[in-house]
């Protein structure tokens, strides 16, 4: 059992706040991804859990023990580094065995574990090589094998795939997911790649400017972003945001159309809709009252679909169209949002309104 509790952890570098009082609980065997843009504090948070960085305030608990005063080696963790940190002066075998040797395991056990993890990561034929003779992908595998060999209760991964090329990254993503599911460790995984986060995570914690703005499943953060930031960060293309003005009784004017929304006191709200949650009508069948018109500016044929960037009421609206839709730039587009996929945001706080 290794539940991780992060309690009010804050970190300051000089005068700047890298982390503002983070509270986060990661359940035993959960795969949690810390997702955010570079410089948002996600790596700092991971390094605080690892003990490579000291928090300015707050507590870290692993498996029911407070660890924030302990050295990294006493925390029962293993880590995969962004630049792999595979020791160049040791063979692949000795790299994988490093943690086991430090724990003074008998040679038979070391042998068994090294061979097993090497098999798992498909590097059993590289054991006598040095890291200088390996490709980036192979080095990554060694780094993961080294971490898994210690059978850690907690595995920390700091952008482990970011130095690999796109194809290799996709392959490793799937492989890592399988391997980690079997290993039953509690994992914190840092990445700036939302596809990586969504495809691997049990739960994604989105970090922005030193705060966790939402921690939920991939589908939840995608469908129900808790903040304007989450909607604009997750999804490619991101969520559309349009200004909405109150008409009374929970009705809102969005780009010249009446849309039913929340009954709140504010006069202005932001209307959010995903580009694929927009339906498009032909001009004849639609009633101009409830289907606002937009003008197509740019069309991007992306194979699986056609992405239309439109102007509506002087605001940007991206719409996902069928790949064989016969439209061209300059055409008007009659659209309406899928009612249960609309999100409303308070422009003052940027928080979602339910």
């Amino acid at each position, binding site marked *: 059992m290794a539940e991780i509790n992060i309690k009010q952890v804050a970190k300051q570098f000089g005068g700047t706040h890298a982390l503002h009082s983070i509270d986060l609980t990661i359940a035993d065997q959960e795969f949690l991804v810390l997702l955010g843009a570079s410089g948002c504090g996600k790596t700092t948070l991971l390094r605080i859990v690892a003990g*490579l960085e000291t928090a300015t305030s707050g507590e870290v608990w692993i498996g029911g023990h407070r660890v924030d005063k302990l*050295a990294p080696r006493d925390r029962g963790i293993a880590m995969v580094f962004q630049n792999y940190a595979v020791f160049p*002066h040791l063979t692949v075998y000795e790299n994988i065995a490093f943690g086991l040797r430090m724990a003074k395991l008998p040679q038979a056990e070391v042998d068994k574990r090294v061979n097993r993890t090497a098999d798992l990561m498909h590097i059993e034929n590289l054991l006598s090589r040095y890291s200088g003779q390996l490709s980036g992908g192979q080095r990554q595998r060694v780094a993961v094998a080294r971490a898994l060999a210690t059978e850690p209760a907690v595995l920390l991964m700091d952008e482990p795939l970011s130095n690999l090329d796109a194809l290799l990254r996709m392959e490793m993503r799937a492989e890592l997911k399988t391997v980690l599911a079997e290993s039953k460790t509690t994992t914190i995984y840092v990445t700036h790649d939302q596809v990586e986060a969504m495809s691997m995570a049990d739960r994604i914690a989105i970090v922005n400017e030193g705060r966790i703005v939402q921690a939920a499943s991939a589908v939840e953060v995608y469908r129900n972003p808790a903040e304007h930031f989450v909607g604009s960060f997750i999804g490619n293309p991101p969520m559309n945001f349009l200004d909405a003005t109150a008409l009374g009784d929970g009705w809102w004017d969005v780009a010249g159309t009446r849309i039913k929304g929340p009954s709140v006191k504010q006069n202005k709200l932001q209307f959010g809709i995903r580009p694929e949650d927009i339906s498009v009508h032909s001009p004849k069948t639609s009633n101009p009252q409830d289907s606002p018109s937009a003008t197509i500016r740019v069309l991007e044929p992306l194979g699986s679909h056609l992405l239309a960037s439109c102007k509506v009421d002087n605001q940007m609206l991206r719409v996902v169209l069928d790949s064989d839709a016969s439209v061209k730039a300059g055409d008007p587009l009659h659209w309406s949002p899928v009612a249960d996929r609309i999100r409303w945001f308070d422009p003052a706080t940027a928080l979602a309104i339910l």
Partner: protein
Amino acid sequence: MYSRKLPYLLLLPSALFLCVFFLYPFVLVAWQAFVTDTGELTSEYFMEMATHWKFNTALINTLLLALAVVPFQIVLALYMATLVNGMKRGRDLILYIWTIPLGISDLAAGIIWLAIFEQTGFLNSFMQSLGFIEEPIGFLGYQNKGTIFVAIMLAEIWRATAIVLVILVAGMGLIPKEYYEAAEVFGASRWKQFTRITLPMLKPSLQTAMILRVILAFEVFAVVVALGGTNLPVLMGEIYTWQYDLRDSSVAAAYALVVLAISIGFTLLIMWGLRTPKGARV
């Protein structure tokens, strides 16, 4: 403009320089040591050298000094470099202070330590004023070979540890921090990090530092002359004696070749001992 010959052309001046000022004198010395005035090949100079009563003493003293000084310097420099690298502030200042002896010539260094150890030196007057001794002790007298040896050791360590330190500090700075973080996460204590990460990754610097120091240790001369005079013969001192006092350049040349052979031998030994396995280079 670029041609295959260009790199060789650029190397030519330095190659010529080495030939004129190194290779040519070396051939001359070798010639002197092996060939008589009448032009016959001979080993008589080597025989003369080896059968002289001071040869064995000089050889043993030189080897013992190198053996006593160099390992101690390496260990001391490793410790100092670790301290310096662990410092957050004032690192450069400490480094400058520790390297001051590098700016002092070896003869001057010998004289400084002579001022400490001689009959009327600082050590004697210090101990006398504290009442530890009644009258001055002749530390460097001919009957005290042991203290002369220790004094030379101290002077050499004081004088030449800094060069090892500079090389090791530079080498340690090249080891990426993440290796230490990885070692730390995987359970290595400070000491284990030193033995399992620092030492192996420092091999190239250690190699350079040790070769440099060992070669210089076999050439120890001025410090020995200042502190021991002729009481503690060393190889380099014998070369000087044969060349200038006994006016026999041929035997001096034979000595020089012995020093060269020992230096090459130890260089090869160090290179082999601290070799990096193929593929393990960063």
